[in-house]
């Protein structure tokens, strides 16, 4: 399992510039927002948590098809399926690798981008915390979507369509934590809901992803 994780991480970082793509996209979205809605700092401060969450989610969405597509094309997924590792383990590792190469960098740069959007003081802590808690859910749900569409050529659009409604609860609670945190309000309720969703999908969704992947490899 560790070997698979290190292999995926190495591939994620080195192969084909996919590593920087999500980060670049996140940067582009946050930098372009003030240009499109105007430089008024009070307004920016109010929408900053939402914009950061939206940018992180879209950057994540952009990199989803890389989770399994390359391994599917060169046949290493078939080899993995015959390896003495349960399919559930494989999809969990894939999701973890995706989170480390995409989700974690997004979390780390989010405070820096918050400066650009004039994020209020307490917001830095809560935006980072909510992204740290929420992005694993995005990776796990995304892996399910990637497993569903892995056999389809040019499945990118379909993948986005399938994953979009699945991302709604995570986005709602995550952005709510960030928004309330930035406004200095109580965050416990949405934070616990977000944690519930994240741990729930980490615990349960790999089974669905593994089942789907088995069907696709049949």
């Amino acid at each position: 399992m560790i070997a698979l994780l290190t292999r995926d991480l190495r591939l994620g970082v080195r192969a084909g510039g996919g590593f920087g793509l999500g980060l670049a996209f996140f940067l582009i979205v946050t930098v372009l927002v003030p240009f499109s809605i105007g430089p008024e700092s009070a307004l920016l401060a109010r929408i900053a948590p939402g914009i950061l969450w939206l940018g992180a989610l879209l950057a994540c969405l952009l990199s989803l098809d890389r989770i399994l597509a390359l391994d599917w094309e060169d046949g290493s997924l078939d080899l993995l399926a015959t390896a003495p590792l349960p399919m559930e383990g494989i999809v969990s590792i894939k999701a973890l690798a995706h989170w480390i190469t995409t989700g974690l960098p997004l979390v780390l740069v989010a405070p820096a981008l918050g400066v650009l959007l004039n994020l209020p003081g307490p917001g830095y802590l809560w935006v980072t915390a909510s992204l740290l808690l929420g992005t694993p859910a995005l990776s796990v749900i995304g892996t399910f979507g990637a497993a569903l569409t892995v056999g389809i050529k040019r499945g990118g659009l379909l993948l986005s369509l399938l994953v979009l409604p699945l991302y709604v609860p995570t986005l709602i609670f995550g952005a709510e934590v960030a928004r309330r945190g930035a406004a200095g309000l109580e965050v416990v309720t949405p934070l616990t809901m977000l944690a519930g969703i994240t741990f729930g999908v980490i615990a349960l969704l790999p089974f669905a992803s593994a089942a789907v992947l088995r069907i696709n490899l049949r």
Partner: protein
Amino acid sequence: MASIWEYANPVKFIRTTDRLLPWLSAAAVVTLLVGLVWGFFFTPDDYRQGSTVKIIYLHVPAALMAINAWLMMLVASLIWIVRRHHVSALGARAAAPVGAVMTVIALVTGALWGQPMWGTWWEWDPRLTSFLILFLFYLGYMALWAAIEDDDTAADLTSILCLVGSVFAILSRYAVNFWNQGLHQGASVMRAGALAGDTEERVSNVFAVPLFVSMAGFALLFIALVFLRTQTEIRARRTRALMARERMG
């Protein structure tokens, strides 16, 4: 003792539904006509809403069937996963576009009513938002069916999507409730107090009876359409099999 699983046999299914379909369709047309004509022309205007209140004869039954269609797909998907009856998978596939259209009808009629009543076509209200999300689920489900060539793979993948999607649909329902309080009224037709005959709470019978008739009409219409579309799917698949056999021979 006849078992429901007999209808997993496509021939038996087609034979039975063929016999039922004319009756079902006729019943659907009659109840829909009665319900809608009664609702549109023979009910008084509401004291505050005027004649716009009459859109409920389309809006409420369509919304009801939009949710029930997804439930039916969920049950059919479960049956496919557990017992692998092809009729069940095809039934789920056949129901999806009907459910999607019902969702659109509910959204559009809601918007038409909301414009004069709430002063807005669209509001990010929990119920409206959940319906939009439900519509996205329908779209994704149908797109996945269309994208996969192998029938059994498609049936397997879409039924798992349907299961996972149901969980997330319920999650979203509660999430959006939390996120925005909303304008849409709560359930008033089926509210417990109303059924117990509490006159304060209740939609007046003048409106309620034609509403129930059009609900029955929509339900019958849905069943008839799903039967018809399932038959079509079965026949299309059989035609494909025959053509494949001919090419081989």
